[in-house]
């Protein structure tokens, strides 16, 4: 009986999807997959990106869609569960037949879906800052690589604030570990002595920062200007900054530059203890350009709440979406190989007043902004790179990746070409 019921259920589902499929086929839409966690720990950050994609699709449809067809979003919820990301990605590409997917936040989730996109030959746009050391044929990375965030931030502290001693503090997982490895190599190359670098890792959601802050204080008492480079993840930041303030460490004495603290994380927090600390991104909500004003206005209208903030991954989603639209229009089809060929070299305006373009390594060019946190939860730019910086997928500062490059244009078409051996495949982990 149970067996029968099951068959019945399956049959009904199949019939329903057939029906739905034929109904939609008449309307001729292009399906766009959205793969962001809407529940679980990452929901805080990722829900916003889902809304951003929906807003972009809405906007595009108002302009008449793409290739004369309307865009149709297909939203799934991978629930902050890494293996589920792969399953949901397969579902989007194989059963829903989406032409492109916008999604993922954590590096683990991205690594988990990579084989799926490769196997089914589809396209993923990844909008979050990450540790680099990867370049995949089917993925476009519109967030910052370390050279678009971490390295310029260190340069700023070194040149503008005269920092000579460095604390690299991070949460214990892949992004901080790789970033700090790159930063350590970079600092040593710049002539910083090993005893002037302190590296510290803490568990996820760490809340007892007493020892670490007092260590930082002691480390900062060597008479050299000290700064903290923080790759501390999301929630653990607030107790960290509170402890700094309580122990009397102010941004004027030991500034903290963070790579994971943006407007969204600051919203609704008591920002008084954070004022003056720094953040490095490629976009701030406070950037004063007509494009950004328009984007914020549209966002507020779409989300129906004037208090909502915009942040860097949203801008990366915006850039990625517009690039995809342009590439599809150039290709005249949404067929994967044709779009992939047309993506490289596509250039669209970003929200900071420049034009971002897609490089042959599937990373984009963006400006790097350093900002100071203000007491209204906004981040005010205090420094920016003079021009745009292209994301460098394989770090030049790590011995295992310094000889690697990636170029997805024919005839090379390789994500990890080793210039020393002249072979594709090199020593790459991926």
């Amino acid at each position, binding site marked *: 009986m149970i067996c029968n019921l099951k068959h019945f259920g399956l049959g009904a589902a199949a019939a329903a999807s057939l029906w739905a499929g034929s109904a939609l086929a008449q309307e001729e839409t292009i399906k766009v997959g959205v793969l962001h966690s809407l529940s679980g*720990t990452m*929901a*805080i950050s990722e*829900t916003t990106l889902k809304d951003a994609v929906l807003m972009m699709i809405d906007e595009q449809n108002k302009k008449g869609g793409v290739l004369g067809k309307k865009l149709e979003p297909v939203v799934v919820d991978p629930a902050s569960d890494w293996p589920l990301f792969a399953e949901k990605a397969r579902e989007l590409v194989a059963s829903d037949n989406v032409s492109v997917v916008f999604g993922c936040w954590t590096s683990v989730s991205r690594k988990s879906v990579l084989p799926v996109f490769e196997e089914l030959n589809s396209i993923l746009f990844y909008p979050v800052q990450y540790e680099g050391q990867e370049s995949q044929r089917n993925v476009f990375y519109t967030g910052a690589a370390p050279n678009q965030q971490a390295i310029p931030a260190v340069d700023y502290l070194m040149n503008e*604030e005269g920092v000579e001693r460095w604390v690299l503090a991070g949460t*214990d997982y892949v992004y901080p570990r790789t970033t700090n490895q790159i930063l350590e190599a970079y600092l040593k190359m710049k002539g910083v002595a090993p005893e002037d670098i302190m590296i*510290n*890792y*803490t*568990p996820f*959601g*760490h*809340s*007892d920062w*007493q*020892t*670490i802050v*007092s*260590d930082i*204080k*002691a480390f*900062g*008492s*060597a*008479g*050299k200007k000290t700064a903290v480079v923080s790759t501390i993840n999301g*929630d653990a930041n*607030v*107790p960290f900054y*509170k*402890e700094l*303030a*309580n*122990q*009397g460490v102010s*941004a*004027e*004495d030991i*500034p903290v530059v963070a790579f994971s603290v943006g407007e*969204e994380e600051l*919203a*609704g*927090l*008591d920002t008084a203890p954070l*004022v*003056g600390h720094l953040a490095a991104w490629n976009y701030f909500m406070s950037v004063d350009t007509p494009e950004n004003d328009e984007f914020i206005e549209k966002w507020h209208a779409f989300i129906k709440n004037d208090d909502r903030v915009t942040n860097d991954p949203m801008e990366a989603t915006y850039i990625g979406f517009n690039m995809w639209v342009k590439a599809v229009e150039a290709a005249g089809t949404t067929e994967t190989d044709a779009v992939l060929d047309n993506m490289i070299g596509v250039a669209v305006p970003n929200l900071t007043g420049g034009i971002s373009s897609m490089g042959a390594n599937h990373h984009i060019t963006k400006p790097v902004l350093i900002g*100071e946190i*203000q*007491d*209204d939860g906004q981040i*005010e730019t*205090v420094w920016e790179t003079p021009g745009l910086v292209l994301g460098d997928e394989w770090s030049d500062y790590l011995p295992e990746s310094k000889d690697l490059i990636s170029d997805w244009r024919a005839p090379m078409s390789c994500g990890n070409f080793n210039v020393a051996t002249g072979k594709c495949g090199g020593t790459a982990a991926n």
Partner: protein
Amino acid sequence: MRILLTLTVWFGLLLASAASAQSLEDLARQLPEGSFNDRAEVVAKIGATGDDRAVGLLNALGEGELRVREADGAVIQVKGRGSKAVGYDPLTGDELGPVGSGSTESIRVNNSLRRAVRAAIGLLTLSSPDAGKRLAAANTAFAAPDPEQIEALDTAIAKEGDAAVRTAMEQARAAAVLASDAPGAEKVAAIGIVARRGGTDALTVLNPYRGDADAPVAEAADKAIAGIERAQQLWNVGQNVWFGLSLGSVLLLAAVGLAITFGVMGVINMAHGELIMIGAYTTYVTQQVIRTSFPGLFDWSLLIAAPLAFLVAGAIGVAIERFIVRFLYGRALETLLATWGVSLILQQLVRTFFGPSNREVGNPSWMSGAFPLGGLSITWNRFYIVIFAVAIFVGLLLLLKRTLFGLQMRAVTQNRPMASEMGIRTARVDALTFGLGAGIAGLAGVALSQIDNVSPNLGQSYIIDSFLVVVFGGAGNLWGTFAAAFTLGVANKFMEPFVGAVLAKILILVFIILFIQKRPRGLFPTRGRAVEG
């Protein structure tokens, strides 16, 4: 039009540079313009005027309260936010009436500008009538030694009547002398003065002179630093003990409620963490009400929130016992699953009502900052949390040992049929006991809202630790929980500097697993027939 504008700006600039001694009013008007570095120079000029009104102006700038009124470009000070914003004249302090939102633009401040503000205020307040302000000024001067301040410090020292402030000023002067190009002998004397201050501040000042070109100076610096570091090492042990006690008090707070529900009643309550979270959210709501309706009471918000949190979490606890746990006594696995379900429901409810992001719970002024105790710096919030945790523990002990309810509770948990025979309404006692454990979890939430994020996930980070503490201490024994919490806290903090926070946590876990293998009933096992039953 454009040319005219350029000309005016040009003319203005010429005028500005022509007038070498500008009035404070003129300087204040220049604050919003130019790069951060230009404005830092303006701040230094304001400091140099020596005008009494400059301190208020600079303080307002440092606090980010200075704004430009868009209508006329005047610089005003704005206090309060949103509809309660009121403008003041930053120089005279006269009230200018309410300020509409959007009618002013803030004057941005960055770190280098803030440093300039701090230095300028320091210089201005060296001769303030308030001894506390003079001391702060001397400390600022000490932390940022500047040879140009020697003269100002000399005058201040000559006038100073307060011994403590005078010492601080002399130390600041010595630090400034070190930074100047004074002769070696004078510098060696200065090192002696700085060294007497001790602590990390003195190390910061002395460290650069370790390898000084002048041999006697380098030698004196080396000796002084070695001396300070020796003293520091002793204090470091004290520091670790304090950090350990502080971490232990957090563990105790989180676990003591569980010591009742799990330890005494034997119910595996997976929703314990969420009851802590409910307590934290009660604090948040209380603070919101106080902020909007009774802003004057803000410093009392935690004291008001504590009984409320106890009642709210306690009521939810009683409801959980009445509607779920009561039917599952003696069936550990089902209880575990059911209460875990409850924890998910509570989390989702909070997420629905308050949103998934963190909520802001402010620290009352008496819980911010730190106070020095010898070579230790003890933060007020941690200090009060330790006191709060111990107070709750003592209160709970008294309740169990000295009241009728406590007696009944112990009777019911030790021998239910007998207690029932004696006329105790066991079902009611069960509900109240569970409610008590839950209420205490709520109290813990009030304290934890001060040091952790108030988010729907708050409880999850404490549930494992709570069980560890109760199991390690020995279920059913409150003193066991007490000892276990502080042992684990101190052990963790002594390991952390050597092995890092991640490994310290792992080592503690491994240690507890091994310990439980050897002594399954924990540190202080409960003895008697009840255990076998």
